[in-house]
Structures are given as structure tokens and as C-alpha cells.
């Protein structure tokens, strides 16, 4: 098992800078997820670590050794690709054997390793099938098996589940988590799916346009997003935002005035902020409460009933849509007028530059 360290990593294609100086350290056995919208550079960053893309500047260290100029196969990594990338002309056994053979491992040892991994991944019946004869899930298992047999220091996953259907994706997610616990290998996992990020990661790295927006545990990102981008990106449905005017603050909180004139006292500190500054209040759909009357009222436009929960989309007087996640049995109907209550303890406050103000109290699960 190994540590991975990125020191001010940069990547330039022609004249465009894709990765703009990323520093990050990944501990032994840690499961790190790179997440971000498409084009944010997460896959490029992973490929730089893998050695499939050159590093323009900065240092990449694996176990303390600088590996910028080391061949991909000699970095001690194994990668699982989105498209599985199995060798179509080899059967499952040979797919897993390929890397071991190149490494010069004796045949008996190869056989033992492959059979062991095949047992773990329930691939034994398919060892002599070609990839073309396997289902998507089985191919994915073979790709994972091919990575495991090499006994790498670090596993790299590049959106490994995005080609699977929803049910299988859920199942593989659980299997991958279990496998990680069992193998205890350092893992770097790239996805655009925040459910995968939230459920599997020890540490999430949120990327946007080649820069790190925030690094933290899943619940840290959920409860204490560092800026508007992370707040919007983590959590589903995304966080709601209300424009507000800063009124003043002290060490226990800050008061802001919403569009409808109501005053909210949010428990965040706002040092140095001048009264009258435009700020943004954020609150997650699951924290907004519905009331039949009161301030902050709007008209229900869509009601999405998911069984256990209901998502109520409310159009506010300023035209913005606010999503409220509420009980599955709520009786709200479209075209009715509802009022929204924003519990201050669940509110976030963002400065005009998008940065979040520090909460007075850290969430116990996101210390």
C-alpha cells in the first residue's frame, strides 16, 4: 500500500492549461474520489497519475518517490477504465495473465493468483470466455480482476460504473466498497456521479476547470461546502439559494434580510463584512419546511412523488424555483400557495465572491 502526493501539478495542451496547479496528498489505504462536472479535468488528472498523460510541471510522488518520468507500467498502479478496455482477443484468464506475464512471473504463481482472484470475483466459470461473450457487469469484474492480480500499490478507477445500468451500478458500488475494505488498497476513483462519491469516498476532491474547489470527507462537503460551486454540486437535489442583504453580525451569527423583508439570523461568522452587502443564503431541499401560510410564499409548480419522499417545486415571486424535499405522504398539490420556513441552523451564507462564511458550530459528523 502506498501514499500518493501531488505537488502543484499542471497540464497544458497546446496553449490551454487544463490542470492549474493541483496539490493533494493521499494517505495509505485511503479511498479518494475525484468528482466534478464533465471537462473539469478529473480524468486528465487521473491519467497524469497513471502516466498516460505527461505532466507539464509539478511533482508526482508515489511512496515518496518522484515518478513523473516513470513508465505507466512501472509505477505500481493498476487502472480500471470506463470502457473496461479488456483485450478482446484474449479470454478472461489471459486478460488477467497479461500483466503478470510481462512482469516475468512464473506460470504456477500466475495460475494461483488468477484463480484466487477469479474466486473472489466469482469469475471462475468464465475464465475461458472471451470478453465479447460476457455481460457488462461481468466485463467490469474482469477489468477489476485484471487490476487486482497485479497487486498494485494504488488502484485507479476512471468512471468504472458509468456504462452499467442503474441497478447493476448500485450493486457494483457496494461490491467495490467491500473490496476496498478487504484489500485495503489506496484507491483513486474518478466519477461525475455524486452518489458514488458520497457513498464510497474517505475523501472527496471536488474539481472545477482544473482547480480544486474543496477537499474533505463526504459529510464535510455536505455540511460545510467551501463555496457556492461545491454547495450546488454536492447533494441531490441541489441546494436552494436566496439572494439577501447582509444586516450585521456578531460572534454567534449574522443577520440577513431576504427579498420578502423577513430577517434571518444565521449561525455563521462574517468578519469584516459591511452591512448592505449582497449575500446569498443557501439551504438544502431536505431542510426547508413547508407551511400553509407565512412569509416566503410561492406557488407549487411540480410535485414529484418518489414514494418515501416528495419533492415539491415552488416558484417564488422573483421567478426562482425552490425545491423542497418533504415527507412521502404530504398532501401538497400543484397550483396551491405554500410558505417556506428556513431553519437558520441549516442555512449557509455565501459572500459575493461565492465563498462560504464559517459556521459557528461544526456538524458533529463533519468535524
Amino acid at each position, binding site marked *: 500500500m502506498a501514499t500518493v502526493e501531488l505537488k502543484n501539478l499542471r497540464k497544458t495542451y497546446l496553449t490551454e492549461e487544463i490542470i492549474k496547479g493541483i496539490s493533494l496528498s493521499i494517505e495509505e489505504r485511503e479511498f479518494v474520489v475525484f468528482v466534478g462536472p464533465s471537462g473539469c479535468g478529473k480524468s486528465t488528472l487521473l491519467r497524469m497519475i497513471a*502516466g498516460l498523460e505527461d505532466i507539464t510541471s509539478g511533482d508526482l510522488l508515489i511512496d515518496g518517490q518522484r515518478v513523473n518520468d516513470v513508465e505507466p507500467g512501472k509505477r505500481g498502479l493498476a487502472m480500471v477504465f470506463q470502457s473496461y478496455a479488456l483485450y478482446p482477443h484474449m479470454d478472461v484468464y489471459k486478460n488477467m495473465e497479461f500483466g503478470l506475464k510481462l512482469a516475468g512471473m512464473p506460470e504456477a504463481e500466475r495460475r494461483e493468483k488468477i484463480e484466487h482472484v477469479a474466486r473472489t470475483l466469482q469469475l471462475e466459470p468464465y475464465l475461458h470466455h472471451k470478453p465479447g461473450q460476457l455481460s457488462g457487469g461481468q466485463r467490469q469484474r474482469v477489468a477489476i480482476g485484471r487490476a487486482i492480480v497485479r497487486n498494485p500499490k494504488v488502484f485507479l478507477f476512471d468512471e468504472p460504473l458509468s456504462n452499467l445500468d442503474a441497478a447493476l451500478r448500485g450493486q457494483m458500488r457496494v461490491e467495490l466498497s467491500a473490496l476496498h475494505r478487504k484489500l485495503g488498497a489506496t484507491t483513486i476513483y474518478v466519477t461525475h456521479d455524486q452518489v458514488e462519491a458520497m457513498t464510497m469516498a474517505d475523501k472527496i476532491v471536488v474539481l472545477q476547470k482544473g482547480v480544486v474547489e474543496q477537499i474533505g470527507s463526504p459529510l464535510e462537503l455536505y455540511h460545510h461546502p467551501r463555496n457556492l460551486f461545491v454547495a450546488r454540486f454536492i447533494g441531490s437535489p441541489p441546494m436552494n439559494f436566496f439572494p439577501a442583504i447582509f444586516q450585521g453580525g456578531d460572534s454567534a451569527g449574522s443577520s440577513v434580510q431576504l427579498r420578502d423583508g423577513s430577517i434571518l439570523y444565521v449561525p455563521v461568522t462574517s468578519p469584516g463584512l459591511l452591512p448592505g452587502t449582497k449575500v446569498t443564503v443557501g439551504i438544502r431541499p431536505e431542510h426547508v419546511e413547508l407551511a400553509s401560510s407565512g412569509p416566503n410564499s410561492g406557488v407549487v409548480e411540480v410535485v414529484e412523488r418518489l414514494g418515501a419522499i416528495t419533492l415539491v417545486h415552488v416558484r417564488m415571486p422573483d421567478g426562482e424555483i425552490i425545491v423542497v424535499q418533504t415527507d412521502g405522504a404530504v398532501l401538497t398539490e400543484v397550483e396551491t400557495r405554500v410558505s417556506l420556513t428556513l431553519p437558520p441552523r441549516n442555512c449557509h451564507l455565501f459572500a459575493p465572491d461565492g465563498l462560504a462564511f464559517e459556521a459557528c458550530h461544526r456538524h458533529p459528523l463533519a468535524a
Partner: protein
Amino acid sequence: MALKTKTSTRIGVTILGWGIALWLFFPIFWMILTSFKSEVQAISTPPKLFFMPTLSSYGEVFERASYWHFALNTVIVSVGATAIAVALAVPAAYSMAFLPSKRTRGTLLWMLSTRMLPPVGVLVPIYLLARNTHLLDTCTGLAVVDMLTNLPIIVWMLYTFFREVPAPILEAGRMDGATRWQEMTMVLLPLALPGIASTALLSLILCWNEAFWSLNLTSSHAAPLTAFIASFSSPEGLFFGKLSAASTLAVAPILVFGWISQKQLVRGLTFGAVK
């Protein structure tokens, strides 16, 4: 109604297909037919479709020239030229398909453009080069020229086939510790084999039938089958029977070869479209 249109369209297309095929095949058919005629029958008007076949033309052709000498030269030149061309084109196409730079496209187009130049335009320089390097009338000299004329097409075809191979598969090979060479030989080549085979076949056919350079760069020692045919066309006037017999002998091997490998050829040429 729709079904009716479909059926009539199908019949029309079938007739058209057969018509074109027969039209293309007719000269070959007539050549083979003529080769079994006597010289008098060969030039009779109206042309005879039914006659008493004779092997006299073949006998005379074999008597007058050493068919096997020419055939061997053709085999050496086409196989040699194809083997060298494919060996050179594989790495070239690999680099263009998987490590493209901003000049790759231009290079490819430029390579193809060399095929648009009429060969006679470079006849004198090539002839002089061959003479000065003592490659005139040698199989090596002809093979080198054939190889060079076909190289652009071979690179193009291989490039297209290689582009069909998903890059992540090669990257997986690299992650597994394969060197570039191993990646090419152990992963790419097996995957692109149908494409490589059909490219080689095409090159073989082109080299086999190549006449311009054979006639200009060889005389006796290295003369291939195309020169063998030509030798029956001039001095004493045209003898269609013998000429047809010689031509039939010259094209028969490649025709049979093409027939046997047509499945491979078609598969290679439509590779990717039906993956």
C-alpha cells in the same frame, strides 16, 4: 404495397448488380475464351462464341518464353514489396493513429497526394537512380519502387484500421507494463489483423498487376509477368490467341488467390462498419 415496392426494388438492384459484375467480368471472360482459340478463330468476324477449344496458344507461349521465370519474379517482387511496405507502414500508421500531432492530417494528405502524380512524371529520375545504384533489371529495384508507390495507400488503410481500435485497450496494455513495441505486437496487431491482412492482399494485387515500372525498369533478368504479357504484343504484330494465353497465365494465380481470400478482403474493407 410497401412489400411490393420492396420486392421490385430488390429485383432491380439484383439485376443492376449482376449487370455491372458481368460487364466488369466480360473482358476477362473474353480473354480466357480467346486463349483457347486458334489464331484464326481469335480474329474472326463476327467473333465466335462457340468453337473447338485448343491448347495450341498455351503450347506456343510455353515454348517461346519461360513462364516460370517471370512468375517467380512476380512472386518475389510482390511478396517482397508488400512485406517491406507493411513492416514500414505499421509503425507509421500506429504513430499517426495513436500519437497524432497537429501535422498528422497534413502528412497523411500529402502522402496520398503522391499517388495522384502520374508515374511517368518521375520516370526519368527514378530510372537514373536505379541505374546509378545498379538496381536496373533487379527484383530488389522493382520491389523497392513498388513498395514506395504502394506505401501511401497502405499507411492510409492501416491508419483507418488502427483508428478503429479503442485507445483505452492499448493504454490498458501500457498500464500492464507493456512497452510500445509489446503494445503494438501483442495488443494492436492481433486486433487489427483482419485489416492488416486485407491491406497486404490489396498491396499484393497492386504489385502483381503493376506494369509501368516493370516495363521500364526491367528487361530480362528481373522481368515479371506483366513484361511477359508485353513480350507477346509487339514484334510480329498482334497474335490475340497467344496474347490471351499469356495474359490468362499471368493473371490466373492472383485471380485464384483473390477468389480464395475474398471473404478476408471484404471483411477487411468493411472492418469497423460491422464490428
